[in-house]
C-alpha cells in the first residue's frame, strides 16, 4: 500500500485515541451540541491562518480555544435555552468562517476538505501535529481525570470536596478545542462531533467503568478509522464520511449485542 495510505491510517488511529476518552466525557456531560458549535467555528480559524500567514492548525486551535471560553461564559449567563444559544453561535461562526474564506484569494482553499475532511492528504507534518496533539490531550486528561469525573457526576458536591469546578470546566472545553484542531484534517468541521459521540455511545453497552468506556471508545474509533479508510479506497468514497459510517455501523451492531452490566 502507498505511503499516503499508511499516514492516513496512523492519523485516524491517533485521533481515535484522544476522541474516545474525550467523547465519553462529551456524552456524560451532554455536550454534543457544544462540541458541534466549537467545530463549526474552526473554519474561521482556517481563514485566519491563511489571512494572517500563520500555521493553520495553530490558528484553528487558538480560535477554538477563544470561542470555547466565550461560549462557556455565554452559557453561564444567557437566558436562552442552551441548545438555542449553541445553534445561533454554531451557524454564526460557520457563516463568518465561510465569508472570511471568500477573502482568501491567494490560496485556493479546499473547502470541501475542511468541511468533510481529507484524510488521504495528511502529510508528515500533519501526522506529527495529530499525534502530538493527541498525546498532549491524553496527558492532560489523565491528570484531571478524577476531578473531571467528580464534576461531571455532581458539580456542587465536587466543589465542596475541594475541586476547582470552573477550572475543570474550562480545561475540558480547551481540550475539546485541541481535539477539533487535531480532527479537522481527518473528518472536517461537520463530522468532528460524530467521531466524539458515536464511538463513546457504542462503547457504553460494553463498559463497566468510566475508564473502560473511554478505552473501548478509543478502540472502536480506531477500528472505524481503519475500516472506513479501507472502504474509502476500495469504493472511491470520501474518507471522512466513510469513517463516520463505519463508526455508525459499530454503534448499530452494539445495540444488537447483549449488554454487560
Amino acid at each position: 500500500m502507498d505511503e499516503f495510505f499508511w499516514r492516513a491510517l496512523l492519523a485516524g488511529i491517533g485521533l481515535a485515541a484522544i476522541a474516545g476518552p474525550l467523547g465519553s466525557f462529551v456524552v456524560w456531560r451532554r455536550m454534543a451540541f457544544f462540541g458541534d458549535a466549537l467545530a463549526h467555528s474552526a473554519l474561521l480559524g482556517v481563514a485566519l491562518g491563511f489571512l494572517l500567514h500563520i500555521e493553520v492548525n495553530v490558528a484553528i486551535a487558538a480560535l477554538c480555544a477563544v470561542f470555547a471560553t466565550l461560549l462557556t461564559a455565554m452559557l453561564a449567563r444567557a437566558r436562552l435555552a442552551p441548545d438555542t444559544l449553541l445553534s445561533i453561535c454554531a451557524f454564526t461562526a460557520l457563516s463568518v468562517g465561510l465569508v472570511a474564506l471568500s477573502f482568501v484569494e491567494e490560496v485556493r482553499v479546499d473547502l470541501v476538505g475542511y468541511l468533510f475532511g481529507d484524510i488521504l492528504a495528511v502529510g508528515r507534518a500533519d501526522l506529527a501535529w495529530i499525534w502530538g496533539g493527541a498525546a498532549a490531550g491524553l496527558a492532560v486528561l489523565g491528570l484531571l481525570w478524577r476531578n473531571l469525573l467528580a464534576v461531571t457526576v455532581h458539580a456542587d458536591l465536587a466543589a465542596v470536596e475541594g475541586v476547582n469546578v470552573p477550572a475543570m470546566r474550562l480545561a475540558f472545553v480547551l481540550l475539546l478545542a485541541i481535539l477539533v484542531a487535531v480532527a479537522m484534517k481527518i473528518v472536517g468541521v461537520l463530522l468532528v462531533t460524530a467521531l466524539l459521540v458515536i464511538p463513546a455511545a457504542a462503547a457504553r453497552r460494553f463498559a463497566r467503568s468510566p475508564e473502560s468506556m473511554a478505552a473501548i471508545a478509543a478502540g472502536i474509533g480506531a477500528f472505524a478509522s481503519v475500516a472506513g479508510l479501507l472502504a474509502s479506497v476500495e469504493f472511491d468514497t470520501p474518507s471522512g464520511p466513510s469513517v463516520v459510517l463505519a463508526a455508525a455501523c459499530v454503534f448499530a451492531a452494539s445495540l444488537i449485542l447483549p449488554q454487560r452490566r
Partner: protein
Amino acid sequence: MSDAPLIAGRGIVKRFEERTVLDRVDVAVAPGEIVTLIGPNGAGKTVLLRALLGLAGLDGGTVERRAGLIVGYMPQKFAIDENLPLRVGRFVGLAGRFATAEIEKALAEVGVAARIDAPVQGLSGGEFQRVLLARALLRKPQLLVLDEPAQGVDVIGQDALYDLVANVRDTHGCGVLLVSHDLHLVMARSDRVLCLNGHVCCTGRPETIGKDPAFAELFGARAGESLALYRHRHDHVHDAHDHHHHHDHAGHTHG
C-alpha cells in the same frame, strides 16, 4: 475542642432579581450539635445551605468557618446519567484519594457494604442516600451538611436514615446541619430546630417548637399539634436490605 461554632452565618441576605429569598438569616452549628432546618417549599433552605458552603455568593452578611473545616456534603437527591458506567465504590471514591479499605469501611458504616460493585443507577432511593452519606463520611468531616437526606425514601427507610444520622453524630462527634421540608419527621434527636421562611421565624428545641406561635402562623395551627416527632425506636432494627424493592424512578425534586 472549643465550643465556638464550626460554621456561622450572620445576617445572610440573598436576592434573586428583585425577590429577597433570604433576609438577614443567622445560623450556626457547634461541634456535636444537630441543627435541623425546616420550612415550606421555596423557603430558601437550599439557598441558605449553598451560601454557607460557599457555592453561591452573598448579597449581605457573613459566613465564618472554623479554619481548616472539613465538610461532608450530601446534596439533594439527584440522578446520575445512565450513560456513565459507575459502580458504587468508585462513586464514593470520587471524594478524593482514598484506599479501597477506607471506602469499604464507609459503606459498611451506613449498611450498604454489599452494594459496593453495584451500578449506582440501580440503587433504590434509600440505598442511594446511604451511599451519598458514605461519600460524605469518607472525608472524616467535622461538619455534615445534609440536604433533604430522606427524599425519595419510604417511611420505614426514613426512620432508619435519621437513626443513622444521629448515630454518625455520636460516633464521629461531628456537627450536623440537616434540611427537611417534612414537618412531620423533625428529628427528636435534633438539638435545635430552625424554622425558615425567607427569614428565621422561630428556633427552639424539637419538643417545644410546635407550640411556638410563629410556627403555627407559618405552617397553620394544626401543624404544630400534629407535628410528629421522630422517636428513636429500640424494638426493631432496619437496614438497607429491608426495603430493597422500593425503587424511586421518578427523580422528582421538591422545590
